């Protein structure tokens, strides 16, 4: 079975059509990268996949593991194994990161028919994952993302991903704003989850990330359409020449 099958997807935000006919198929174990200019619709695609209410699918279909994704609420998608690492993780005052991650993991475990973890068991699981992303301990006791540095927020996203062990991961510019060391750490975290059963959709502006997370396919999104797909050498080419040549060639 395919992991994700998108056919002729059109989506709007308000009155504006942003996605204008996307076709994309991802099989288990594959890593697909999406690159493209600012405003081309990358985050919109990620939002549509995770069930963000601001977007409306007006045409086409999305099948996730054979299921019609549009029928599922955001929480149901998460429980079924879709994970979006946010481009801009949200700060939530008054709810500790620790409480949040435990509630989240337990919601997903319950859905999988597993027992909820108590505070002690959760602590030992989360500790181990925190090591992988070199996350400072005190961030667990603080409010979700509140006052976290840009890099800490991204680490927190990857930490959640490691805990929840999703099947389809959508990473929306998880590399942006990271220094070289943080980039390596985050990539290590992501690679921890690489397996023949899991797939990833990696949105990035930089070929550098793809040195660490090596994609099977690279797509170029421009004005709401995939205008080119190729191997990882496409990313190198883009880095060198920019997007102009593709957009011209496509026109």
């Amino acid at each position, binding site marked *: 079975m395919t992991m994700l099958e998108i056919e002729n997807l059109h989506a709007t935000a308000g009155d504006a059509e942003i996605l204008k006919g996307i076709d994309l198929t991802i099989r288990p174990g594959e890593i697909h990268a999406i690159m493209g200019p600012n405003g081309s619709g990358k985050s919109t695609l990620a939002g549509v996949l*995770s*069930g*963000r*209410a601001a977007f409306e699918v007006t045409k086409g279909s999305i099948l996730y593991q054979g299921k019609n994704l549009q029928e599922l*609420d*955001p*929480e149901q*998608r*998460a*429980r079924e194994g879709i*994970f*979006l690492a*946010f481009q801009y*993780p*949200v700060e*939530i*005052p*008054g*709810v500790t990161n620790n*409480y*949040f991650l435990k*509630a*989240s993991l337990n*919601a*997903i475990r319950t*859905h999988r028919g597993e027992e909820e973890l108590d505070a002690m068991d959760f602590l030992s699981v989360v500790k181990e994952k925190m090591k992988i992303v070199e996350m400072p301990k005190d961030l667990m006791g603080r*409010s*979700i993302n509140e006052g976290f540095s840009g890099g800490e927020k991204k680490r927190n996203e990857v930490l*959640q991903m490691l805990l*929840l062990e999703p099947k389809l991961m959508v990473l929306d510019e998880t590399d942006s704003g990271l220094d070289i060391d943080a980039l390596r750490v985050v990539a290590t975290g992501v690679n921890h989850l690489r397996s023949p059963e899991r797939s990833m959709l990696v949105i990035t502006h930089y070929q550098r990330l793809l040195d660490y997370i090596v994609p099977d396919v690279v797509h170029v999104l421009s004005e709401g359409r995939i205008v080119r797909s190729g191997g990882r050498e496409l990313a190198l080419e883009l880095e060198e020449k920019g997007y102009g040549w593709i957009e011209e060639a496509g026109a």
Partner: protein
Amino acid sequence: MKDALQSAQARFLAQATERIPPPAFVELRREATAAFTDRGLPTMKQEEWRHTNIAHLAGIEWAALHEPLAPPRSAIEDVATPIFACGLEVFIDGHHHPELHGSPGASEVETLGSTPAPPALLGRLADAKAHPFVALNGALACDGARVRVHGDDPRAVHLVFAQGSEDAASHPRVVIDAERGSRGTIILDHVSLAGARHFANSVVEVEIAEEASLDLVILQRAGGTSFHVGHVAGRVERNGRLRTHTISLGGRFVRNDLEVVLAGEGAECTMNGLYLGLGEGLIDNHTWVDHAVPHCTSRELYKGVLTGSARGVFRGRVVVRPDAQKSEATQSNPNLLLSDGAEIDTKPQLEIYANDVKCSHGAAIGRLDPESLFYLRSRGIGEDEARGLLTRGFAAEVLSALPEPSLAEAMSAVFLEKLEATGQRT
């Protein structure tokens, strides 16, 4: 409405003549009865009651109980969990329940119903002539507590006011002397034994002597059918510190008045409040801080959560007297509306007569942030749970300021429980 108020007034006045009060209350009753006879119950024509209609409260024939129930300790523990402190005293329908007290700490707790003479502070800070429900309390109070805080008392005093009988009213009175240089915590905990409809009308007078510091926690968690009117009048002397925490978790009708006079230089007052309006409830907080002398600080944070068709009222009055230079006063009243039917009237009222002062205030009315909600849901947390978490997160700023972490945790759980039990959304 006038007629209803007058018959309610007559019923209460009749109760005031039914029995002779305990010795400590004789003088108070005489004066307060006169004031209550004069002024009666408030109508919406009075500025302080402009948003709050007491017709429903006045329409119920509240009984005065003379023989209190004597529930077992376990019944109290069930509703007042956790029992926070060793200095525990329990009042049922306004009467002290002698069998349930805990072991005393450094603070002294006396029950006013069995004290031979009134403590000096009784009737001195809460003005029966200015406040109709203070007058009513004075006219009918027959028990309560006097707490003297000495030295440094690490153990809180926990006074539980439990309502037991249907349609009963109680008028508890509390007097607190925080003596010079002392440190203490006092928790006044209003609970309901059986979820009966009842009316509690309490008055607290609290004096913070020089260099003393006190946390005063007022919990109102008696449930959706309770009517609660509470008046706290405080006075803080030089370098004294009073921190109030007024936590109101539901109720059919809740009105809290808090007035604090900063009477000595260097006095500080922090007023924290959290109110949860549920169902058709009304929750009204009127606060008043009086900067009477220079170099005093007041900080006020009241947060409101309203759902169903609940209505909230917040009026925060800050007065800075002409010679109270170098005063610092902040006030903030953010509100979260969880339903379309919920409402809040919020209004700061700053009266600043000195020129060298730092004062700021702000009120806000908002809804749950959709992006935050989506973030939680995208991690598998169901919508209702996510809303509950965000709402509790909103309240956390006030709850986490409670004097003991265990108290903060317990109240956070009670808050969520009340919200989930009755909290509807639209």
